[in-house]
Structure formats: C-alpha cells, structure tokens
C-alpha cells in the first residue's frame, strides 16, 4: 500500500543527484593556456552564447591569451575600449623595459594596462566559470594559473518603474527592479551609512541566484541576522527564481496559512523596515524583497501612513482593521444569522432580508459558498487576463452575477452585497488578502455547521494560532501579545513622528532610541502671537 511512498523516499534520499556542477572547487587552473582553454571549452560545450576569443599580447614577447564572456551579459563597447584595445594595441606603448614576460604578464596587465575599475582573481576553474555565467569577462593568460575577472556587466534591464502593488498617493514612486545591483543601490541611496551591510550568497545549484542579506549593523539584532544566514545557507535546492521560493524555505511555521515573512516592492518601505531592525533579503531576478521578522500588524501598515498627516493615517489604520474583520467574518456572520440566529436581526432588517431570501433555491450556506467561489474566479480572471479583456470580465461579473442572478431569483440580494463588501474589504488589506480568502472559507463552513458558536470556536482557534506563531523567534502578534504599551503608538493608530522616539521593542531593542525625546515643535521663544 505504501510502496509508492517507499519509492519516493528512495529517490529523495539518493545522494548526489544526476547533474554535476561543472568543475570541482579543487580544480585549479593550469599554467598551460592550452589546458585551460580545453577545460573551458569542455564546460561550455553547446552553449553558443559563450564567446571565447583567442589572441596574443605584446610585440616582442608574445603571450597567448583568451577571454571568455557570455554574449548579452557584457557591455561590448566597454569591453572593446577598456580590455581589448589596451591588450592588443596599447600594450605596445607600455614601457615595460623588457620586464614583460610570461611570469610578470599577469601583474603588469592587471596593474598597469587594463583600465577597468573592478577586477578580481580567479584561482579555480569553478570561480572562473561562475564569473562568466554571472556576466563577468574572464581573461586567461599563458603561463599564469590565475585568471583575471573583469566586471564589464551590461545587459538589458527594466528601468525603475512605479510598482503595481503598494500604490501610494504620497511618497516615493520608485520600485525595485529585477536587477540586484539596482536594488541594492536604491537601498544604499536611502541609507547612506557604512552600517548598512549587504552580504551576498549564492543559492540554487542550477540557477546560482545571487541573494543579498541587507541589514543595519547597529540596529538589527545579531541573533536574527545570524538566524537569517543560517536558514538561507540551509537551502539546498535546484533553483531560486523568485523570492517566494526562499520565503517558503525559511518560514518558522511553514504550514500556517499566515505569512511570517514579509515582502515589499518599494525601497522606501524596505528601508523603513530595516531602520526598525528588520533584515531584508534581496533576490536577483525579482523586485520583491523579503523582510524578516514579519509581524501581524505589518499587514495593516502602509508606507503612506508615515508620510501623510497622522490623524487621517490613524483613521485609515482603524479602517483597515475593520476591513479585515469584515473581510474575514461578514459572509460567515450572514450565514450564521440567517440560518440560526434570526432573533438577532433587527426587525426592520429582518423584513427586507426575509423578503430577499424568499424564493431563493439554495440555503444561505450554499449561497455563500457559490458566491465565494464565483468571486474568486472573477478575481483570478481579472488578474490573469490582459487589461482590455479584464474590463469585459468585470462587466460580466458585475452585471451577470450581481444583477441578473438576483433578479432571476437564484441568489438573494443581501448575499451579493455581503460578498461585494467582503471583496472590497479584502483589497484594503491586500497583503493578507489571500489569507483572508482561506479564513473566510473556514468561517463560512463553521457558521453553516454551528452558527455563531462555530464562528466563536473559529476565532478562538485563530487567536490561539496567532499567539503561537513566531517569525524568526519574534512573537508574531507583538506588540499586542505580549502587550507592549510603548509600541502601541504604531499599531491601531499612527502617532505623530515626534512621539515615536523608540523603535519597536521586539525588533530594535539593541538600539532603541530613534530620535530625541522632545521633538514636538513649539512656538518660537518670545513669539507672543504664536502661543
């Protein structure tokens, strides 16, 4: 019966999968250029985007050399000007006083000939190959067991654009891009401080994706930084194509339906989170940057809260919490009230609700499920379809489902209102809207089976789960549980900036003071009119 499981186990435990990494770490480079060339050619067989160019350097003493690069990853113009030209033409002008020979060639070329700002040495074939694949140009010289890695990267990238998620009215419109260097530069531009540390790792046996751990040394908890590094180095997988891969590998509670790793597309909000003591994980190839630890309350915070005036920002906060509760409980509540607790509905409302329910063929529970599924389908269709078609979908959704289903008597009008309200509410807290969909489904089932008791059991379960969650060792529900009154200034409300003089305790306890204590603007001294 469990034969298939045994097979699966055998496959998974088989060490050293079918593929081999090209070249071993101990594969040192040879003094002979011929041998190096052969090795390189062997590694890059059938890879026709890899260019190998052989040439000779020097007039009197001629040294064989070749460069390797991947076509498309290298800025060819700069390659011509700063590598090929100096080596093949300017070399003749260099006054070497006859010291130029096979032994000194490498040093002379590296230190005096090449006008390239970023060069590295590669002692092993593996390093050279990795460099080529990352977009560097590697120069091999005869008689030198070290290859020169010149960073001449240049490839087609998408420019910095406004992100589609986390749209703001006020605040930076820049978003991260798919290019790692652009992303780190955007962080550096915001935090001009040597304490901003960016540590690189490569993850993924096939993809060798660059992953950068970014944190601010004086603020981030060392333990959390260490934990992030530990968890990232644990990942032993084929490929990392998006930060979502990493997210699932490093979560504290991988089976929870709540996210314990945050993500953002906006450099300003990532910078702000790092300044509170969080660690950011930037992944090459995606604009979505992960931030850990992630707290539940972050789902209700928006970068714009901190940029706009605090009164309205606070109202918006409370509104988001309300929207969360509507999004999670409205259909369940409707089902519970109409099928079990009719006495709880105010009389005037009961009349119109009963009138709307009159003659509908399905029980409220089934109605809720149908409408829930239809809504999810519409949402998915709207996201996937090309924009012009997407409009057609919304028209079909609004007219056919909303209007016709009600007038045809298939679905009660209150249910449509409830589902529409739910949908709009869940967009307000968009970062956990997928979680809300699942919660909603569970609560509707519980309400359909047990009424309000079911919902209460569900809420108790949900709260228990919330308080049991940890994100990189930090309680998920903090500062609500464990309660920290000082941090409440940024939970249900957003206090004015001059009041938020400390960082969140659970995150930035190492360096708690954010600013001077008394920064509230006051009237100018001696200004009688302004008192």
């Amino acid at each position, binding site marked *: 019966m469990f034969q298939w499981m045994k097979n699966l186990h055998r496959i998974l435990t088989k060490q050293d999968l079918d593929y081999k990494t090209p070249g071993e770490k101990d594969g040192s480079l040879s003094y002979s250029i011929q041998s190096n060339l052969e090795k390189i050619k062997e590694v890059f067989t059938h890879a026709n985007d890899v260019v190998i160019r052989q040439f000779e350097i020097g007039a009197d003493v001629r040294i064989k050399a070749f460069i390797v690069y991947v076509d498309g990853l290298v800025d060819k113009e700069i390659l011509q000007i700063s590598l090929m030209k100096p080596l093949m033409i300017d070399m003749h002008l260099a006054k070497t006083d006859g010291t130029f020979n096979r032994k000194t060639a490498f040093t002379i070329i590296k230190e005096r000939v090449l006008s390239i700002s970023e060069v590295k040495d590669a002692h092993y074939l593996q390093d050279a190959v990795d460099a080529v694949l990352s977009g560097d140009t590697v120069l091999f010289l005869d008689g030198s067991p070290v290859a020169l890695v010149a960073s001449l990267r240049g490839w087609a990238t998408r420019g910095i654009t406004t992100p589609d998620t986390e749209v703001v009215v006020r605040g930076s419109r820049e978003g991260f891009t798919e290019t790692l260097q652009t992303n780190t530069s955007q962080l550096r531009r915001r935090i001009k401080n040597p304490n901003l540390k960016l540590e690189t790792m490569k993850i993924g046996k096939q993809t060798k994706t660059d992953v950068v751990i970014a944190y601010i040394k004086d603020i981030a908890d060392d333990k959390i930084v260490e934990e992030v590094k530990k968890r990232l180095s644990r990942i032993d997988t084929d490929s990392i194509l998006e930060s979502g891969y990493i997210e699932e590998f490093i979560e504290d509670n991988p089976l929870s339906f709540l996210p314990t790793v945050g993500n953002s597309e906006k450099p300003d909000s990532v910078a702000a989170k790092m300044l509170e003591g969080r660690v950011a994980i930037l992944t090459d190839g995606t604009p979505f940057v992960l931030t850990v630890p992630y707290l539940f309350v972050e789902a209700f915070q928006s970068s714009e809260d901190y940029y706009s005036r605090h009164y309205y920002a606070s109202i918006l906060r409370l509104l988001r919490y309300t929207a969360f509760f509507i999004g999670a409980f409205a259909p369940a509540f409707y089902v519970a009230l109409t099928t079990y607790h009719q006495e709880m509905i105010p009389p005037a409302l009961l009349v119109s609700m*009963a009138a709307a329910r009159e003659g509908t063929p399905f029980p409220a529970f089934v109605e809720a499920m149908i409408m829930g599924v239809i809504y999810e389908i519409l949402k998915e269709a709207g996201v996937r379809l090309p924009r012009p078609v997407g409009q057609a979908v919304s028209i079909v959704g609004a007219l056919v489902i909303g209007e016709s289903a009600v007038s045809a008597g298939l679905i009660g009008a209150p249910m449509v209102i409830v589902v529409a309200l739910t949908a709009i509410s869940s967009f307000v807290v968009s970062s956990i809207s997928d979680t809300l969909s699942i919660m909603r489904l569970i609560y509707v089932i519980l309400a359909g089976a*047990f009424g309000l008791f079911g919902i209460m059991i569900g809420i108790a379960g949900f709260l228990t789960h919330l308080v049991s969650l940890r994100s990189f060792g930090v309680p998920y529900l903090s500062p609500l549980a464990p309660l920290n009154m000082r941090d409440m200034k940024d939970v249900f409300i957003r206090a004015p900036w001059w009041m938020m003089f400390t960082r969140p305790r659970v995150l930035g306890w190492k360096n708690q003071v954010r600013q001077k204590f008394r920064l509230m603007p006051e009237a100018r001294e001696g200004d009688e009119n302004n008192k």
Partner: protein
Amino acid sequence: MRKGLLILLTAIVSLTVVGCWNRRELDTLAIVTAVGIDKSKEDGKITTTMQIMKPSEIKSASSGSGGSKGVWVVTSTGYTVFDSVRNATMQSDRKLFFAQNRAIVIGEEIAREGVTPLLDLFDRDPEPRRLTWLLVAKGKAGDVIHAEHEQENIPSKAIESLIKSSDVTSMAVTVNLNDFLKNLSTHSTNAVAGRIDIINEEDGENKKIKMRVTGASVFKGDKLVGFFDRSETRGLNWINGKVKSGIIVVKSPIQETKNVALEIIRASSKITPEIQDGQIGITVEIKEEGNLGEQMSSLELTNTEMFRVLEQRKAQVIKNEIESVFKKAQKEWGTDIFGFGEAVHRKYPKEWKELKEQWGDVFPEIDVQIKVDAKLRAPGLSAGPTKAK
C-alpha cells in the same frame, strides 16, 4: 499520517453529518409579529390569533405593485396557549417563529379570568422575548390582530409605533412582558398593562377595522378589573413620573369660553409614605413645567398675572386627573398600581413585614395627599395673540 487522516475524517464527518441539525433558513420560518389570546367558543379552550409576516408580499409592495396586506392571520384553538400555537402549524407550512414577536394582546373576557396561565409559555419558552409589549384588548384580541393599518403593511409594527409614540400624549400605559411579570410577582405593586381599542369604521360597503392605543388596563392580582380612560391614565402616569409630554387644556382666564393649550415639557413625581400611630399616609408631590403652546382667545395672555392664573388652572387639572384615578383604583377596585406598597416597603421595612399580607385591605383606607407644583415657562415665539386686522 494515519492519525492526521483520521482527525480530518472525523472533522469532516462531524461537520457534515451532525451539523445543521438546528438549521432554519429564513424562508422556512413563519415570523410571528403579534399574538392575540381569546377565550374559545368551545368550553375550556383557548383561541390564539397570530399575525405572520409575508415577506414576499412586502417585497412586491416595495417594488411598486403593492397595496396588498403584508401579513397573514392564522387562528387556531387548543387547550393551552402552547397547544393552540402548535395546532397552527397544521395550517402554516412554515415553522412558527416567536423571537421577533412585537406584541401580546389578551382579550378582555379571558383577562378577567386571570392572565398568568396564558403568559406562562411566553415566560418559559426561550424563543419569545420578555421585551414584547403587553396589551389588553377592549373586546376581542383576535379583532385587534385582524385590524389593518393605513401606513404600515405589517399592523403589529403600527401597534409598536403607537405604543412608543404615546410619550407625546402620556395618555397610554406602555408595559412589556418583563415589567408586567415583575409586578405580578410582588406584593407591593399591582400590575397594569396597555390597552388597545378597536374602531369599526363603516364607509359604505367598505368595512374597516382600525385600532387605537390609549388608556390602560388595570389588574388586581392577575385578573383584569377594568380599564382607565385617557385622563385617568395620565393621572396614573403623573404619579409614576412617566409623563413625558402632552397637552393640558384649560379655559382662558380672560375669555372663559376660549381654550388655552399648555404643553408639558417635563414632570416628576415624589411619593412619600408616613406612618403615624399605625395610620399610613401618602403624600404625592408632582412637579410640572410647561410652555404656552396655543391660545384661542384674542386677548393678551403673556404677562405674569395671567401666567400665575394659568399655572393654578393647570395644577387643578392635574390634581383632578390624579384624584379621578385614585377614586377608581383605590376606592373602587382596591388595587395598588401606584407602587405605594413598594414605597412603604422601602421606608418602613420592619412594618412592611406585617403589612405585606394585609396590604390589599389596608390600601383602600390610606389617606393620600396630592401636591401639585405647576410652572408655566415660555410663551412661544409670538408675544401677543394671533389675530386678523
């Protein structure tokens, strides 16, 4: 693995199989909005008349084709209230649902025989609310339930609104089931309930039954002893401090044929018992404030002397109203609906222990002093009388 599967299976089974056992969809409920209880023609039986909401009619009425009645009235008979309510299920295809019931109306005839047996169900069963209004019909309760209302297509909604809006006249008693049962269970206060009248209007062939909520029905023990008319009811409300607003009509001091309407703005009462040499005396102090609301005479009234005269006349009207209610309740019926027993109980707890059992005999003999302090405040927007030139 297997354990997890088992838990999942148990959860699914328990949710789908035993769940939903108490499920009632809205469209399977017959929402009762008013109940009338009468004596049946058959001996020893009870007839209940129930007003049941017809959501589909209300729906079509709101979309414009309306004019139809929004309720369906079911009458059924049984040996007890519960029995007859259950028997109604033989006619209704939906389950009767009492949690939204607004009013219980008891017929005069059966109320005179005692109401506790009739109200037991509403006290015992979890579904009906104790905040339901309680009324006694002058006549048959069934007729009240059958009565229509021009403004509301659910007549019971009109009953509720009429009860609530009686604040502006203070000429009706508003009592819900909870208050009534509470008063029934004490020695110190007798119960009153609302009163609802039926008006038969004959407009050619069109026969219309309408209703009016006014007055009060007075109980001794659990038996109805009689009804109060409007001014007697306001007399009762003066004593209980329940007068919120209303109009007091007095004769104009200048032209004795013309009327002046004085609006009550606020009123309060104070009941002070006094026991001297075994004699119980009660002082009722009424404080009232009002405005000049309307005057029909053509002469100037807005001066201090006139106001003093109006105040005296107003105080006399209030006093008369209170005296009339004492005459009926204390002397005629001997039922303490004013809470005098409770007042004595509070001030003389020791004496009350002896008085408690014989309160019914003592009460009619009590000497009651009435003091009315009526004030007239504002003359309104116009200083002089409105007159044509």
